[in-house]
């Protein structure tokens, strides 16, 4: 089991603080992961659009 021991109030506050900070870091990592995802898919989308334009230009020429 996860270790369980009696903690003083101060220690408890420290534990809460640690958990809080760690959670924020994890949230940030997830956020970054999603931003990267958006960036990747946007780039792909742009490329596709570009190809479409190229194709239509070629056809027009």
């Amino acid at each position, binding site marked *: 089991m996860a270790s369980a021991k009696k903690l003083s109030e101060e220690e408890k506050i420290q534990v809460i*603080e640690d958990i*809080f900070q760690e959670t924020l870091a994890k949230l940030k990592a997830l*956020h970054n992961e999603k931003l990267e995802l958006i960036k990747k898919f946007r780039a792909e989308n742009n490329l596709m659009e570009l190809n479409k334009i190229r194709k239509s230009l070629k056809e027009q020429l």
Partner: protein
Amino acid sequence: MNKLGSVVDDETIKKLNSLKTDLENSPEPVSAATPEKGKNILNKKVDGAVDEVARRAALDVTVENNLSAGLENNPTFIKKFKIIDKKRIWLYTKVKHVLKKIQKDNTPEVTTPDAPEAPAYVFDEEARLAMIELEKELTDPFAKSIYDKLADQNKQLLLEYLVDNPISQDESAIIDLKKVVDSNYNVVYFSDNGYLMQLANKEEVSQDNSFKLGDPKALYTIISPDGQIAFENLDYESAVNTLEQQSALYQAQLKEEFLKSALSDTITEPEQGIALNDKLALNNDLVKMTDEEYSELYKKAHGLNKGLESGNKTSEPLDAEAEVVEPATEPTVEPTVEPVVEPELEPENKIDYENYFDNQVLNYADKMGIKAKELGQNEEFVSLNPTQQKFVLEVLNRSSLAKIKVEAHNNFIAESQSKKWYNFGFAFNQNFHKKKHEVLAAKEIHAKGLEGYGETELSWLTSVIKNGPEINVKDNGEVTVDYLHPEEDDSEEMRRLITQYNEVAYKVVNDKTGYAFSKELSDARNALIKTAESVGEIVNKLVETEKQIKLHQHLKGDPQSEEIIKKLTDNSLGAWDETKMLIGGQKDKAGYMGIGMAARMLLRSETATILLGKGLTYAVGPFVAAVIGAYRAGKHSVKNLNEKEELALLGIKDESNTVQNLNLAAGSPESKVLGLSEKLDRLVDKYNSLSIKAETDPDVQEDLEKVSHQLKERIYFTGYKMKNNLVSYGDPKDQAANYYKLLNSFEAAKTLLFTDLSILNFHNRSMITNKEVTNLTRTNKKIKDINDNQEFKKLKEALLASNLTQQSYPGR
């Protein structure tokens, strides 16, 4: 870090970042608060931290949604997007739970929220509704008491697993939830009472999105039924042991609680209370009582049986209610075989059967669990030479894999019919239970000895091998088979070519790929045809010989089958093995790889008897075995058949699309469905009758050409289907008959094709190569003269005699 310049304009990024920075700089309720003593401060900190995490998460979501505008129509993106959302929700819920616990308890668990890979336990709407539907089925009291204790995340995981692996069609109808499933969150084991074993560091150990569970770097987390992380950073072995131990302890505790509650409920009914106490007195150790007994006791205590007897309507039949969660480790089920009581023989009558056989034969038989006595009593078998005997045993052994698969599948289905989704141990660990039945079936066959493998099969194989070419062993141990014998007056060159041909032929038979030596064989064959004095004679011989080669090739099957069988029979099915098998079994496709050829050798004794009785063997029809080579090559080219496809080829019916796409080898008279063989037979009949008419009536010539074209197409199509394993041979009991039926129809059609040059012009797209067509064109006239269609006539006669195709040849 956020290099968004390439996708969003600078102004937007600036705006969004400033908004974010402002919020990040706002006073943080935890770190910015002045430390004070007393519970109020602690409460405030917890509440503040939880709110702040929620606020940050919401803010992130807003920013992400703004930036992703326009990408909503990309399903891949949305899928990945949602997975991250789920992880975030999980993270929030988890941290909230942990912090609130600290707030509530004086002894907080010093633990941090788990990595985001942990399961999300926020139900979306579809999952929630499906769960409600499923929960209606949960009428068994003990199972319900266990289920009620599960945390939402554990419930969700089970549900998500069931979406992909429903136990029954009814349940899959309820959980039509492809929308719900993302993954199984790396959970590799789900105990009967809801303990989860989860791989914590998949990224570190996975390659190509799969991983070895026993990888030394793999770390596992155990999550208890209430959704808490019970153990972390365990290696594979300790994780399995810990899970089993914890699960057993928890099960004992559940039983105790359940029984106590049942007893307290029955105090008002003295009679039943006494019965319960009696039962208890007999079972001092509560843990020893089985779950079923508890469930029964509970039912008695609540008068459930009475209710049913008196005709009260209940939503579930009693049998269904009796279902309970099985224990985490099932008792080892060893097949029990009645010991064979050897009749007392007078000393002079005792026969030492072992002396009948060569050591290598005895060793192989021993490996299969067959006794020398069993083999010794089969005179035909004894009359074979040792190499032939071993050959027969090898084939018998390999073909048993198909039996094992079918038997195991049927037993698994039978077991699953008695299970419900809330039998977690079964529902989640279905792969293990499938494997378990395979092990049991394999052990049973092994334990029964020759009876298990089939005495009829042994006799059939013996006769096939005995009437085939001579198999002999050289002094250096090398095996040769005289597929082709030289004639007395053959030249030296001819003898040399025959020896060369036989050597290549033996390579072909033992080749694993099924096609590696086909060119060599073709060259050796052509050399013989070129050199022979009489082309007709050698072609005739070759036809007969290659039939034998293909037959041997077919019979030999895939050597891998032997390894699989060995693996199955070696398994002890103890608790630890169970887990290992389960876990190994999830990724182990090997079990389904080796059975292709063995499947086709599933000679049910009754069919074999019919075939032998009617004189219908491989000897019927020219080229009859030609197709088998194609089978073998096809088998190897599509080796990674999935389990459903393999079972479908074994005749196990399934409603899935994969299986519906299979063509039937033979139709059934009742359903008026035509199989491949009937379709071929019809065209052959039509062609024959038209060609007779065409001799006197030139008007039918056009029709004849049309049918000829259809026949070519049909032969091509059937050949393609057979080659690519796209044919279902029906129920196991009809398989051999259907196999032969299709084979014969196919060969009959091909024979017609070979003997009629007018149909031969289809080489541009047939399975016959141009080279072969050239050879055939050259020799066709001679073949026709020599055979005068005798083989074809013989084939039809034999088919008619065999009674297998009466339906296809009406009025003949």
